[in-house]
């Protein structure tokens, strides 16, 4: 499996135009949002989609399955060419809504030797959990630029492993025990981050009126950005197409 290692991940993070830690920590002020609009749209890709990679399962077949696995880092919907798992955020927003308290704590689940979700958004500095639903050993091994890398074992008996990242950036997570297991943790400076659905659609709600830079990042297709103007009580539609042939 081709791997983006530490340095590469650091480059990715800087490509993505993530703010430097020092400045991101003071930049965002949560508060009441009196008037707001919604940004909605779809991310598409019409280029050639590489075939999924075949991986033989040699470790923990009783839990991971005996059948070969097919993994792909580019999921494109059949009907509308929508791309799943694209991260979208407003990189220069200064003020807006606060984080909602989720009903369940935010978790990165390891189930059937797959990380779910594949891309998880967590607030910077907030604790979340790696959950082991499998009862076999996994390990959380990260590559990052700003945050320290971690490599923590999570044997079958350790159901919940607390994790925390301080600086906003996109962190890559792998399990060394199961070569194919891979996920991304989006450490977010504010709540205006979202991930596209399986049809490539997304929405960012409750955005105060203003003009923002909307960043778009996909693990394989890379980074794009668009300027978006939001007005009060209105929907603005932003459809983005990844250029083919990369």
């Amino acid at each position, binding site marked *: 499996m081709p791997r983006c290692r530490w340095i590469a991940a650091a480059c990715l993070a800087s490509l993505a135009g993530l703010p430097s830690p020092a400045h991101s920590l003071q930049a965002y002020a949560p508060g009441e949002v009196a008037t707001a609009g919604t940004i909605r749209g779809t991310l598409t890709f019409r280029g050639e989609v590489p075939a999924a990679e075949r991986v033989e399962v*040699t*470790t923990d077949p009783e839990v991971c399955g005996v059948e070969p696995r097919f993994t792909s880092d580019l999921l494109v919907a059949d009907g509308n060419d929508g791309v799943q798992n694209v991260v979208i955020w407003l990189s220069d927003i200064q003020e807006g809504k606060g984080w909602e308290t989720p009903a369940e704590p935010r978790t990165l689940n390891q189930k059937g030797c797959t990380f779910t979700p594949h891309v998880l958004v967590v607030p910077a500095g907030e604790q979340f959990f790696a959950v082991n639903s499998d009862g076999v050993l996994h390990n959380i091994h990260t590559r990052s630029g700003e945050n*320290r890398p971690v490599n923590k074992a999570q044997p079958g008996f350790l159901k919940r492993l607390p994790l925390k990242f301080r600086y906003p950036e996109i962190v890559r997570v792998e399990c060394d025990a199961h070569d194919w297991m891979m996920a991304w943790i989006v450490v977010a400076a504010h709540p205006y981050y979202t991930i596209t659905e399986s049809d490539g659609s997304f929405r960012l709600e409750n955005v105060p009126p203003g003009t923002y830079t909307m960043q778009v990042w996909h693990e394989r297709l890379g980074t794009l950005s668009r300027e978006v103007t939001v007005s009060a009580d209105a929907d603005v539609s932003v459809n983005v197409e990844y250029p083919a042939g990369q």
Partner: protein
Amino acid sequence: MRIWHPLLGALAAIACLASPAETFGQESPWRDGTLDSSMIESGKRLYLRKCAFCHGSGGRGDGSVARYVFPKPRDLSMGLYKIHSTPTGGLPTDQDLFRTLSRGLPGTTMPSWSNLSTMQRWQLVAYIKTFSDRFENEMDLEFQPITIGTPKPPYPESVASGQRLFLEAQCWTCHGMKGKGDGPSSHTLVDDWDYPIIPADLTSSRNWRGGYRPEDAYRSIAVGIGGTPMPSFDDALTEDQLWDIVNYLLWNIGS
């Protein structure tokens, strides 16, 4: 009172004979945190003579012989180290670096520099830290070295408990049931420098990078080996359990 296992005593004696230089607990000459620039200068001169042909004159791990060497000489500019007594992802302490230079990294071409004077080794430590700004940026309390207590005597119950834990915590997934480094995941492991890596052979502790004293093994299992698939187990196992595994490794699988 502790009942001393006769074999333990004998082995400890041998270990002392084999490495007379295991007195690395010394403080760095810059205890108060100020690095004397003349130390760095002297360290640089030494580095260029002794280390650059492997680690490269800029510390990037690209010296003239680097391509003939495996594992590769460390790229010291990344601030990513295998041996550290800080939690996973942490930097080595000055003592860790001093000790690595003094011992070398067994099983690799990184030699022991115990032929250099203590002061020279400290000068080298001072200099190699300048290759990565992580050392300056990440001086915070969260990343203090872990506490390593006193080793647990290798009673049979402790060794047996270690064996159980070796199975339950699935060390064998990488290291193999007999610890030979041939577990089911051993063929697919890659390190953070993008090279394939094989799990350590747990039956030959002399080749462990970070040392084979019980305290060394404890540290390697508790915090892991930086930049490699060897994960940290300090969230998963208690101090007692870690010592049991250490005893299993040193008194069963490896003897």
